[in-house]
């Protein structure tokens, strides 16, 4: 019973938008960045990516860029590659819609890129306003011709990221990695 009390406490913390420290799959994503020689990481604030963002900021070998909107990240990762550095762009599914026209930059120049997206509006979403964009996220990538790799199993996080990096920097594509809301948890505002 103590476990479920603990789980409920964790749910409450997550509902307040605090990073969920009990989930360790972000560590696997961070390890994949190091293994694949990522040098720049751009992000917008995001609860699902909070643990990963903290790890990246603490790593002084990584140049982290805090963005005011996701579109800015497309320019930054394109510039990083022009300058010879690999990068990763972190965002929530809502930001993918913001980026559609900017994806032209990556597509027209065949820039390799790994865009790591935490999903909302998907698994157990409680807020109606999140659902339209969450359901359209995959389509936005597909519209612009980007391959998608789904991550819905925390145990497979590292190998999923490895697949994405291989397709990006081996296959020469911009790749979207969609992290299922099932892995993150849906806010219910304690309702």
């Amino acid at each position, binding site marked *: 019973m103590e476990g479920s009390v603990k789980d409920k406490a964790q749910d409450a913390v997550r509902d307040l938008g605090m990073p969920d420290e009990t989930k360790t799959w972000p560590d696997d994503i961070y390890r994949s960045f190091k293994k694949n020689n990522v*040098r*720049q990481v751009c992000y917008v604030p995001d609860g699902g990516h909070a643990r990963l963002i903290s790890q990246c900021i603490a790593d002084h070998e990584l*140049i982290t*860029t*805090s*963005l*005011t*909107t996701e*579109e*800015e*990240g*497309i*320019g*930054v*990762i*394109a*510039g*990083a*590659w*022009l*300058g*010879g*550095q690999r*990068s990763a762009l972190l965002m929530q599914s809502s930001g993918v819609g913001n980026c559609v*026209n*900017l994806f*032209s*930059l990556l597509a*027209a*120049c*065949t*820039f390799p890129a790994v865009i790591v997206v935490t999903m909302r509006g998907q698994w157990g979403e409680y807020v109606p306003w999140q659902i339209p964009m969450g359901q359209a996220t995959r389509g936005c990538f597909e519209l612009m011709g980007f391959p998608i790799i789904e991550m819905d199993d925390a145990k497979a996080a590292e190998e999923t990221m490895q697949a994405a990096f291989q397709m990006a920097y081996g296959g020469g594509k911009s790749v979207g990695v969609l992290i299922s809301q099932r892995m993150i948890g849906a806010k219910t505002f304690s309702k």
Partner: protein
Amino acid sequence: MENNTHPLLDRREVVAALLHERKDLLVVTGLGSTVWDCAAVGDHPLTFPVWGAMGAASTTGLGLALAQPDRPVLVVTGDGELLMQLGALATIGIQRPRNLTICVLDNEIYLETGGQPTHTGSGVSLAAVAAACGIESAFIARTMADVHVLQGRLHTKQETIFAQIKIAATRAPLVMPPRDGSHLKDRFRAELLGELAYQ
């Protein structure tokens, strides 16, 4: 503040001065007229024209400047292009790479789409926005003397510079660089990185 008594500058003269003896300069241009302006000086593998993705020139320059801290990076773009992603100045303002210079050729109109007025003609000061975002060396340039001083400074790599250069709203002859984005990207990387570009 600045006065308006100077005749407005010629865009081609400004860009020719900025790119004069460019040495190890890396250049990113915003879409439209500034692409033609840089091409008119001479096509160069280390000039990357952002032909589309309006608003992405300044952030592309940021990513490049962070990746290549020992090389001066110059973004040449227009007022309309910069306004499309004004928030990028906040992002650049907290990073402030010492080797990044952003030059906005400000003609106060969208020249490529029929001359509709941009916000800068109605009192929006991009230099003031840049300064408020933490870019200390942000100013409006109105004379060729200002431009020549700026050209020297961008090679010193001492601080992020933001220059809003007031230019005449005239159309210059169309000079196109290559359009194939993959070619532009690959030749830039090959020139900058040599063999490492293909690893």
